[in-house]
């Protein structure tokens, strides 16, 4: 399995090195630095083989994390592990940066000891780990009570929730977060579009509650024969949606999902991601971008971009940003826009047009004249126009139909739980070629 794990800064200095197996020598640390970090070229593959040793790396901001092994391992597992490691570290000290890693190195070593033993991943659940790790808490002396907690943790059947949790107010927050991705041709033809959605929950519930959760998934509704109920038509005008693929948090009883298409689970305490899904059909694209690029001679270009919002007029989109790339040899830009603020950013080679908010079914446009320095160099590769925004609905059309909480042992019922549901649609890679 994993023979060792190294963390480097952008210069290739080792911040953390932990070797789990004898077959990995100290020189492995240097081999990766020399061959990958210092190679000064684009990374050819996230898996590198140096002298029969495989290095798997990921990069977060300017920190490199590398797993190394001599065995024939499962690459998917290793990368998932690295991602998990990053997640765990983030939950302890926020952003992954050189300073944070240096300040927390004792904690990181401790984490590495608990998460991996002899190169085999053990338990990597943040909430569980907190009971093993001494470094965060100032109270390091393990009290009697905590001790028994650890034992129940360690032997408990449900590994993601400990017993005896109590809250005065039982609350449940549910966020449907969607990233809508689009690639559109200049003619307005959708080349590819998909929504990657996540349902994130924050639960503050006492005891060992059981939750039931329903969405307007086509399969579920067809089964119960309610798909043609007109009152269920959602904001985007669709009764039910087709989910291409979904994955769930460990706590969800998948057998029930398979047979009854109901999502039932005993939730972990605090924040977690309940479900992740992807849809590709009938996506309501919140915005359309219509580009018009005209090259007037060799030293001038005219760009006109129209954006149209395509959702209910009562809703408001926020944080809209349109990024129009300009050629490398741009010498000057004049921008005219009716709404919002637009600026040419020479360092980013782009015109950035920002709008604070925009209502549904509206349109807005920007036009720009770009002056070019004469150059017969490479033809400009015309990167796509990209867009960022945030809208208060789910572009996939997903709706939460119900969310029920049962706790048979304690005396609170579904009505006593305060529930909050929120939909946020954000742009993923939302690009229109021009």
């Amino acid at each position, binding site marked *: 399995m994993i023979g060792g794990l190294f963390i480097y800064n952008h210069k290739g200095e080792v911040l953390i090195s932990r070797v789990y197996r004898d077959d990995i020598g100290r020189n492995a640390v240097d081999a990766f630095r020399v061959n990958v970090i210092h190679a000064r070229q684009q990374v050819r593959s996230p*898996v590198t083989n140096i002298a029969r040793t495989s290095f798997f790396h990921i990069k977060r901001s300017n920190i490199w994390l590398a797993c190394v092994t001599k065995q024939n391992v499962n690459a*998917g597992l290793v990368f998932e592990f690295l991602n998990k490691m990053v997640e765990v570290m983030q939950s302890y000290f926020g952003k992954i940066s050189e300073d944070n890693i240096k300040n927390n*190195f004792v904690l990181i070593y401790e984490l590495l000891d608990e998460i991996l033993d002899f190169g085999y991943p053990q338990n990597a659940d943040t909430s569980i780990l907190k009971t093993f790790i001494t470094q965060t808490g100032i109270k390091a002396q393990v009290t009697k009570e905590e001790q028994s907690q650890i034992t129940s943790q*360690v*032997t408990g059947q449900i590994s993601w929730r400990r017993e005896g949790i109590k809250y005065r107010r039982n609350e449940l927050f549910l966020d449907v977060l969607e990233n809508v991705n689009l*690639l559109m041709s200049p003619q307005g033809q959708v080349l590819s579009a998909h929504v990657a959605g996540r349902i994130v929950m924050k639960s503050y519930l006492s005891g060992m509650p059981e939750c039931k959760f329903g969405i307007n998934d086509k399969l579920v509704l067809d089964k119960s024969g309610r798909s043609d109920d007109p009152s269920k038509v959602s904001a985007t005008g669709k009764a039910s949606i087709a989910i291409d*693929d979904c994955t769930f948090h460990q706590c969800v009883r998948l057998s029930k999902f398979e047979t009854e298409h109901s999502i039932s689970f005993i939730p972990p305490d605090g924040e977690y991601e309940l479900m992740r899904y992807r849809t590709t059909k009938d996506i309501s694209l919140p915005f359309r971008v219509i580009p018009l690029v005209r090259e007037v001679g060799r030293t001038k270009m005219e760009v006109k971009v129209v954006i149209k919002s395509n959702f209910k007029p009562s809703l408001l989109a926020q944080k809209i940003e349109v990024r129009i790339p300009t050629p490398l040899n741009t010498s000057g830009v004049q921008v005219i826009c009716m709404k919002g603020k637009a600026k040419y950013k020479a360092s980013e080679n782009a015109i950035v047009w920002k709008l604070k908010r925009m209502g549904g079914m509206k349109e807005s446009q920007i036009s720009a004249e770009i002056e070019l320095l004469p150059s017969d160099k490479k033809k400009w590769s015309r990167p796509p126009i990209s867009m960022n925004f945030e809208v208060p609905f789910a572009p996939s059309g997903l709706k939460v139909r119900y969310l029920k909480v049962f706790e048979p042992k304690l005396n609170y019922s579904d009505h006593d739980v305060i529930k909050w549901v929120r939909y946020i649609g954000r742009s993923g890679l939302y690009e229109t070629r021009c």
Partner: protein
Amino acid sequence: MPFFAGNDTIKELRTALADPAVQADKNRYRQVLRRVVSLMTDGADMSPLFPDIIKASATSDLVQKKLTYLYICNYAAVQQDLALLAVNTLQKDCLEPNPMVRGLALRTMCSLRIPSLVEYIQMPLKKGLQDSSAYVRRNAVNGCAKMLHVAPEIIQDAGVIDQLYGMIRDKDPIVVVNCLQALEEILQAEGGVVVNKNIAHYLLNRVQDFSEWGQCQVLHFLLKYKPSEEEETFDIMNIVDVCLKHSNSGVIMAALKYFLFLTRDMPQIQEQVYNRAKSPLLNIITSGGPELSYVALCHIQYILKTSPGLFNKDFKKFFCRYNDPLYVKTKKLQVLTEMATDGTENDIVEELSMYCTDVSNDLATASIQAIGKIARRLPTSASHCVGTLLKIHGLQQEHITSAVLMALKDLVLLYPDIVPKVTPLLPNCVDLVQEGPAKATLVWMMGQYGHTLPNGPYILEDMVENVASEISVQVKLELLTATAKMFFSRPAECQDMLGRLLEYCIDEDTNMAVRDRALMYYRLLHTDVQQARRVILGAANRPVQIQDSDAPGQEVINLKDLNTLVPIYGRRRWDVMVEERRRKEDQAKLTNGTSDDTDMGAEGGEEDNLETLEETIYLVSHYNLTPQEFETKWEQLDCVTTVHLDYNPTHSPNALLQKLEGAHIFTMASSPEDATPWKAFLFAVAEMKDQTHLMLVELCLDRMAATMQATCKFDADQMEDAVPLISQFGRVLRGTITSSS
């Protein structure tokens, strides 16, 4: 960067550790320890503090304990004598009431890996296996695997193995997984942990209890059990089906492999499994990080080899995003190329042509090559592809034009009817294309088709003028041929420049190959012009068969390779790596008596019976093979390895062949003794495991560098057979050739 912390620092730290004021204040004491550990991480030698740290380890403060244990693990190997002192504390800690401390102590103890301490560790380890706390048991089980490398005799004891087998039924899921992993390592020589029906069913019933990492491992171990009935197989698939929905892509892949493995004898169901796997794989590509997406793409590429049509409907999912890293883009490009079939090829070619303006020249070049590849594979799409290539050519960029030319070169031979479309472009390329291989292609095309251009000879003439400044040998050779060809179709315009070119190449050029070719042309033309025409024009007009070795649908993938590194590195590269590693290990064995690498992966089991060559590989002393058979075999076989050897100039090549004959490696054909380069084709037949394998060798001798290169091809159906064959035959060859007398 290792550096030496000054004595002052160490002295200062030592005083701080001994200072009663510091010892009294827990936080201050921790600070000091933290500094020690931080200096240690930077590579400073902190080993002189060992006794002080051992003293510090006898504490009830858990934080302090963890820090000191980290230090002890790091330096125990250097301070072996003093490590004994640490064991005392550790042993005491193993009896603590707090399970955290017990587990920690046990883990640290097993991580010391010092043979002399084994006797002290044995007892706590055995006790740990029966501990009431699961945390301690987890560490104890892993401890067994760690100790295996220090004291195998203790761990391989039947008692321990039985106990570990028993602990597969432990109620803590992590203990179960650790047990399986430990047993797999301990029993490596016997083929790893045995999974019988009982264990398999038990694991399947608990599959939901395991953590995501545990599920990956368990699914891997379940591969060892083959259900006896079809019904059982379906039951198993129903249970494991949930794993395909897991959010961890490692689990999804492991489940997928298991499914394919279960259905390997049921082709129809296997097809369904592939279909079932489609959407999770696509999901990883679109929403996983770039690294995971790369891994999934590699697997898709691998799967496409057996079921080429699988992703045809979803080809748009493989379009590159602007922000994808280069490696993802390159992989997507390869997958798209392989996916192109009737119906999708136009869209795919359209998309590929978008990438040729990518910022990365490599990707641009690759996309053009990909279009060429599609055209070669699908004759129906050829005209569309050529049209696209010609359009791309209009971009007037050096790297693009070069790539387009090279792609077109292959196509004109295959589809002669596109020639009239291509030739008018050639004059435009002359100024743009400067790099060696692309320029050689251009010159070749000028020679082949340039005679239809009105100014054809004059374009060549410019090049002939500048031949002195040309560096590339390849370009010069092509220029000679092209000018000679042009001479036969447009003699009046070319005679003069051909003369000048031949003169330059014969008199002034320093490269032998160039001179030889010029001399040959000169003599040919000198003796008989008609004969020369036949030779020079005839040779290139042969129809050229292009073999597309990596066309999809031609290989049957090995299911075992899924979910390993093989799809990521590619079959061939992986085989070379395995082979190299084996050689390294052999060398280590010869020099040290023991292998450096303690852990050698799954193939390690065979290592023991490779000690003497004669035992396993036996070359047959008589075998008849006709040259025709040799040739067809040479074309067919694709299991190839290359061996580099030193050449001893005191032996003549013929003596060498004799020597090889003595070792039962027969000569099929060879060049004359003094030819340069000297080549020989050899063959041998090996008997191994009651099977015979044919091996073909091409031996090339480079006299200048005194080296030889042997390209060996093997006739083996199974990869498992080929690997030992390759390594052993390589050694026989090396041994015979380098042995004196």
